[in-house]
């Protein structure tokens, strides 16, 4: 609980120099904005890469003007080579998974709002927090560098399955220096995320203000706390895995390469490594990573919905327990990525059951959202539309999980576009909707100006229809056996599916272009938006009790004291239909749980 010595530890005066204020800032809010900016740059890169891939998948021999600028050898005559397609695909996934889906919903919003939600002045270790961002930034630059070193980035996919990723240049373009740079960047990224988790967890445990019990924490902060615990335990597995992968390249070790492999008629100088070891290590990180991407979105969406429904969730605690259950189960399900990998088929059965079981907490969360809508006074605005869109997308992505949880069905659907549809709906697009929802909701607090709600709604409508047009048909492709990670469809039974790919490409280009509306809104509102009041949405949690944007030390010189559970809506108070968490007023129909 409240601990003055801990507060003293985080206290640091307002910065005076430009560098301390905007670049190497110790302020969690500036660090949050820096992460947000990094996420925006990365998502732009990732989206452009996906456009290039989609154009190639629809029209394989189409010359994309200027493509040769991205690669010396990858685009002769601006037509993408097969290896360059795979390189772009790998980079698309890497930028999106690590530098967007991990960075934006968790590190960006979490950094900005978690200390405010807990009623703290800052993170417990501001220097580590600053290093967290700059370490991540270095990881990002290193990853970008791979476009310009040797024969370009790795083509092995974001999963980097060994031994292709471990045998070096002989494996193909980008499999030498490209893999080393990739693994180095990801290892650095892991360090950055560990620094972040080491701030988030003690902040929640030790820096809560007076009256702020754990159950009084708002849902996004619960989500970030749970995510931090996942990050701490999963990135710390990925990092050594990446180091071992680098050693296989530079030190002649054979952690992931078996004996007697022959590539290009050359017997490889490796022996004794394990192909499946990499997959186990990678997916032990990889599946929790899916939830690292989506759980913060669940928290954000719940927060936005509650504020716009003007009533609390049916059960705050059931939602928190369910997010916790997702986190715990996420470590027990990773083997479903490996049903046909050659691991013992009994393991497939063992991994199948927790995978099916994880649908239970997911369903509870969805039903709590839908059930809470019952009897609400729902306000429709950009933030709530994206939050509701998130639910729709998460349902769609969730039901395809029923198929992929079953080893016998994976015989048909493994490594097909069905999987691509599934994970894009859940961890990618739903999570992005969470980011959009959070942006429209919190922008006024972060930058002190309102966003244009009309443009936000236009952005929502076109994006919502667009993402369904992109990803829903991928289920059909998967059912028809269309294998993913193919740069062209030369297999007889896949050729009739090219028309579907062309449809998806058009939808992707359209939906991508629509994002310009968002960027325009973001930039225009940042400088010319209407000044935001302290509490534009009549919210109840602590971020709405301080100025927009908040001052350097968040709460001024007076530390907040909390009297209520976070979501007192639908009450009759002197403030209206809501009661701020830090209001000492007592109302008779409050939702305070004992």
């Amino acid at each position, binding site marked *: 609980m409240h601990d003055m010595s801990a507060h003293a530890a985080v206290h640091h005066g307002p910065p005076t120099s430009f560098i301390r204020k905007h670049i190497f800032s110790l302020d969690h809010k500036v660090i949050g904005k820096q992460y947000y900016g990094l996420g925006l740059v990365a998502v732009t890169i990732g989206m452009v890469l996906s456009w290039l891939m989609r154009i190639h998948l629809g029209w394989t021999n189409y010359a994309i003007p200027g493509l040769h600028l991205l690669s010396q050898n990858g685009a002769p005559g601006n037509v993408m080579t*097969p290896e360059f397609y*795979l390189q772009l695909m790998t980079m698309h996934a890497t930028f999106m998974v690590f530098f967007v889906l991990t960075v934006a919903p968790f590190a960006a919003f979490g950094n900005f709002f978690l200390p405010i939600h807990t009623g703290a002045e800052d993170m417990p270790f501001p220097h580590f927090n600053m290093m967290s961002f700059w370490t991540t930034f270095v990881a990002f630059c290193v990853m970008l560098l791979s476009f310009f070193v040797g024969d370009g980035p790795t*083509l092995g996919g974001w999963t980097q*399955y*060994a031994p292709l990723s471990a045998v070096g240049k002989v494996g*193909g373009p980008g499999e030498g220096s490209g893999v080393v740079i990739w693994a180095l960047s990801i290892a650095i990224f892991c360090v950055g995320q560990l620094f972040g988790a080491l701030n988030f967890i003690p902040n929640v445990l030790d820096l809560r203000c007076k009256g702020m019990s754990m159950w009084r924490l708002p849902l996004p902060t619960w989500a970030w706390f749970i995510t931090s615990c996942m990050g701490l335990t999963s990135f710390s597995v990925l990092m050594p895995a990446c180091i071992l992968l680098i050693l296989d390249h530079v030190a002649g070790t054979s952690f992931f*390469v*078996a004996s007697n*492999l*022959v*590539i290009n008629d050359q*017997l490889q100088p490796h022996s004794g*490594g394990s*192909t*499946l070891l990499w997959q186990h290590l990678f997916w032990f990180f990889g599946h929790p990573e899916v939830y690292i991407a989506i759980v913060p979105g669940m928290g954000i969406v719940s927060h936005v919905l509650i504020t716009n*429904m003007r009533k609390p*969730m049916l*059960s705050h605690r059931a939602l928190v327990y369910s997010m916790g259950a997702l986190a715990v189960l996420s470590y027990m399900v990773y083997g479903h990525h490996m049903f*046909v*990998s*050659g691991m013992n*088929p009994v393991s497939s059965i063992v991994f199948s059951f927790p995978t*099916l079981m994880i*649908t*239970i907490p997911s*369903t*509870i969360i969805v039903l709590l959202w839908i*059930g809470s*809508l*019952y*009897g609400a*006074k729902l*306000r*429709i605005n950009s933030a709530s539309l994206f939050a*509701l869109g998130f*639910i*729709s997308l998460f*349902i*769609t992505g969730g*039901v395809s999980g*029923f*198929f992929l*949880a*079953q080893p*016998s*069905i*994976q015989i*048909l659907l*493994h*490594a097909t576009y069905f999987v691509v549809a599934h994970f894009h709906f859940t961890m990618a697009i739903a999570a992005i909707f969470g980011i959009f929802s959070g942006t429209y909701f919190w922008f006024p607090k972060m930058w002190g100006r309102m966003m244009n709600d009309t443009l936000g*709604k236009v952005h929502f*409508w076109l994006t*919502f229809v667009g993402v369904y047009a992109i990803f829903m048909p991928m289920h059909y492709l998967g*059912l028809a*056996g269309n*294998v*993913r*990670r193919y740069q062209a469809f*030369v*297999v007889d039974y896949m050729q009739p599916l090219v028309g579907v790919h062309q449809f998806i490409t058009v939808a992707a280009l359209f939906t991508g272009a629509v994002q310009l509306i968002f960027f325009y809104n973001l930039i225009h509102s940042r400088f010319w938006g209407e000044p935001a009041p302290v509490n534009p949405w009549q919210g109840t949690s602590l971020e709405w009790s301080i100025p927009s944007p908040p001052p350097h030390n968040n709460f001024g010189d007076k530390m907040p004291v909390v009297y209520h559970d976070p979501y007192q809506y639908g009450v009759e108070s002197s403030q209206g239909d809501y009661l701020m968490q830090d209001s000492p007023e007592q109302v008779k129909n409050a939702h305070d749980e004992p």
Partner: protein
Amino acid sequence: MARFFAITIVVIAILSAIPIIQNTWHPVPDISAHGQAIDDQLSDTMWEAGLSFLASQILLAWFIWRFSGNRPGEKSKSFPGGATGLVAAAIILVGVEVFALGIFGVKAWAAIYFTEPGADAMPVQVQAGQFAFYFRYPGPDGMFGPIHPDLISEANQNFYGLDTDHDADAKDDIVTAEMAIPVNREIRLLMHAKDVSHSFYVPALRIHQDFVPGLDLQLHFTATKVGRYEIVCSQLCGLGHYNMKAYLSVLSQEDFENWLKKQAAFQ
């Protein structure tokens, strides 16, 4: 606005379901003895998932339609039964659903992976390498010659690294780029990779198994319909991954024997 959104959700849900109901895109027809169990499992799951999908989206849309706007005079109220009812429903309904899927799914899986091939199953070996499959038949002696990795050479067309000068078992081995098998005869497939991970995906046979470098794996299956089908690689193996494919010919016993003789003559 809320109502328009609700309608949009319902329209998207229905449009999404139409190709599934019409079966516009579907797996290639099954030609295996074991595949029916997988197809049944897929069909059951499609029903359960499809109904869950439609029901959830429609419920979401309905509540958005019904409960948006300020509606002065109407008090905000809670879902009948509250959270307890919903949590119980989720645990019981989804629990039963996934448990049933799990149990039946195990049966389909077990039929492939937990049964031993019959003693008279015909052995065929498949080797995956960047970016081709090569198949090997043991010849009249019924024995595969040992593989010498140092002798593997695409340049010399010695795909399996056989030493026919010294290994008696290897002399009559038949190596082919296309797979042929007799219809209605159980096949014992011996799988290994020579370089990186690949996968052996034959949708028509309801077979999908990764090759794991350093590990010899086995599968067994029976094809029940004569025809020509495709084998594709589904595990990213390098720049030519998309083009790594082979044909599987399922032949009558007589045609198969003739084919094998012809292949033996090419060795």
